[in-house]
Every structure is written in structure tokens, then in C-alpha cells.
């Protein structure tokens, strides 16, 4: 292979600079993108959720069920976070659709959730779930570049009052 010419070197540098400047532009176009959907909460979903987190006794005892609802349904809202989009539209690792963002790595590591709960969910009510890409940025970690994807989800009732919200930070890397 021939030695690179000065023109080749300049082109490589220009490509590198171009890619560096291009990434944020791709992300900028996606930041603020919002999806919205409605969901009617079925009591069976709540029982299944309680079961999945280890609250599995006396679920059919109405009084105890009601008490548990008051106490721990706070995070039932988690069941509403992930959109029920077609499996084929998800990234290859099956991570959430919100993580389909170019140049943000192929695998997830860690992450965080900030949940605010205004009120308890009411079985039978219809809720509106709005998810928005809040931010995307990168940082150099000890073992390579890390990409931070911030997704905000707001859950509202039929009066458009906020009942819960989450700001999730997903961390991706190659």
C-alpha cells in the first residue's frame, strides 16, 4: 500500500473533524422527539406487577390488595414506560426504542432512574404516556467513550394532570 499523501492525511483529518461535528447534529435532530400513547390500566396488570416484584401473597384479598396498592403501586408506573412497538423496530440487543440513536454504542451499561409519583394509579383508568428524548451526550470513560441518553416519560390522567414521571438515563458503549 502506498504511503498516504499530504492530501490523504488532510482528508482523514477533515473526515475526523466532520464526524465529530456530525454526531451532535444527528443527535440534535432527535432531541425533543416525543411519542404519545394511551393505556387503560387493568386490575390484572397490577396483580401481575405485584407478583413480579415479590408481593405475591393474598393478592385476591380485597382489603390487603387495596393496602398494597396504596403502598407500592408507586412503581407500577414502570410497566407503562416501555412502548409496545414491533420487536423488529428495536435495536439488535432488544433495548428500548428510544435508544435507536446513531453512534451511541451497541450495548447498555448501568443507568439511573428518577421517579416522581404524584398519586397512586387507579385500576380501570386510562392514562396518557408521553416519552421524550431529553438529551444525548458523550463522555470519555476509563475504558472508552460512554454515551448518555436521557429519556423523560410523563404519565397523565384524563384531566391531563400529571400522575407520575420518570427521567431515565441510559448509558451505552461499544
Amino acid at each position, binding site marked *: 500500500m502506498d504511503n498516504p499523501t499530504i492530501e490523504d492525511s488532510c482528508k482523514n483529518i477533515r473526515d475526523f473533524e466532520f464526524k465529530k461535528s456530525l454526531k451532535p447534529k444527528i443527535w440534535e435532530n432527535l432531541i425533543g422527539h416525543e411519542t404519545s400513547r394511551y393505556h387503560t390500566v387493568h386490575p390484572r*396488570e397490577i396483580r401481575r406487577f405485584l407478583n413480579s416484584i415479590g408481593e405475591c401473597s393474598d393478592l385476591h384479598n380485597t382489603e390487603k390488595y387495596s393496602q398494597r396498592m396504596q403502598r*407500592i403501586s*408507586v412503581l407500577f408506573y*414502570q410497566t407503562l414506560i416501555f412502548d*409496545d412497538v414491533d420487536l423488529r423496530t428495536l435495536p439488535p440487543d432488544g433495548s428500548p426504542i428510544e435508544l435507536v440513536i446513531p453512534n451511541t454504542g451497541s450495548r447498555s451499561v*448501568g443507568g*439511573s432512574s*428518577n421517579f*416522581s409519583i404524584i398519586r397512586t394509579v387507579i385500576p380501570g383508568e386510562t392514562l396518557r404516556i408521553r416519552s421524550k428524548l431529553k438529551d444525548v451526550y458523550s463522555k470519555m470513560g476509563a475504558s472508552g467513550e460512554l454515551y448518555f441518553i436521557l429519556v423523560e416519560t410523563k404519565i397523565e390522567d384524563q384531566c391531563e394532570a400529571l400522575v407520575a414521571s420518570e427521567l431515565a438515563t441510559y448509558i451505552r458503549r461499544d
Partner: protein
Amino acid sequence: MTCDLLDIDLPLALPDLVETPSREQIFMFSAVTWNRHKIHYSDVHAKSEGHRDIVVQRGLLGNFLARQIGSWLPEKGHIRQLNWRVIDSAYPNEKLVCKTELTSIKQVDHSICLSFSSKIFAEDSRLIVKGHAEAELRQCNTMSTNSAN
């Protein structure tokens, strides 16, 4: 035993919550939250990403903290905010110990606001989660003081 909230010495350690999530529980939590991320159900995929097994979901870890705090709060108490960050991966059949302390109590109008600081440790002492919670008690000035001690 109940006492006035203002008499509580802080920080107050809540009773530990010990959980050992099974593969079945991890599967159920993925199903119920419609989380199709492969690291939570395919050990082949999880290992290809450098994990030693399937990984416990961030949401399930947060729910352990919510259960610990929620079961300690008196009847009129509600968790208003729960923030948690995953520091390291947790795996099935691994004993996880949730440690939470009540760190502050403030009177705000007709409510009492409680702050909690939480950590989840694996049995090999790895720090899995760091968290923080805020809870509210309405028109209530007494509570159980069951602590870890």
C-alpha cells in the same frame, strides 16, 4: 412502639430487606414491564456483552427499595420521589441486601417530608445501587420506629 417524629435520632436505619431474585422473577419483571432487552433473558447474549449471566433489571432493583421504604412507612405515608443509580450488575440467585437510612424529617405545611438514603449490596459486598427517596406523611405525627437495631 410510636413516638413523636421530632424525637427520632437521625440517621435511623430501616430494617434491611434481603432479596434473592430468581431467573423466574427476572423473567416475570421483563414480561410485566414489556422490557425486551436481551441481557435480561438470554444468558448467551448477556455473556456476549461481558456479563456473567442475565442481569437484574434496574426497575426491579428500584422496586426493592420502594418495597423496603413503603413497608416501613406508616399508613398515611407515600413515596413521592425515588431516584436510584445502578453502579454494578446484579445476577440471578445472588443475595441482595437493601440498606436504607432515614436521614431527615421536615415539617412542610400540613405534611411531614422524610428523606432516605439507600444502597443495595450483593453478598460479595459489591455496591449494586445507590439511591435516594422522599416520602410524605399527611396529617400524621406518629410513626413506628422499628429500626435495624
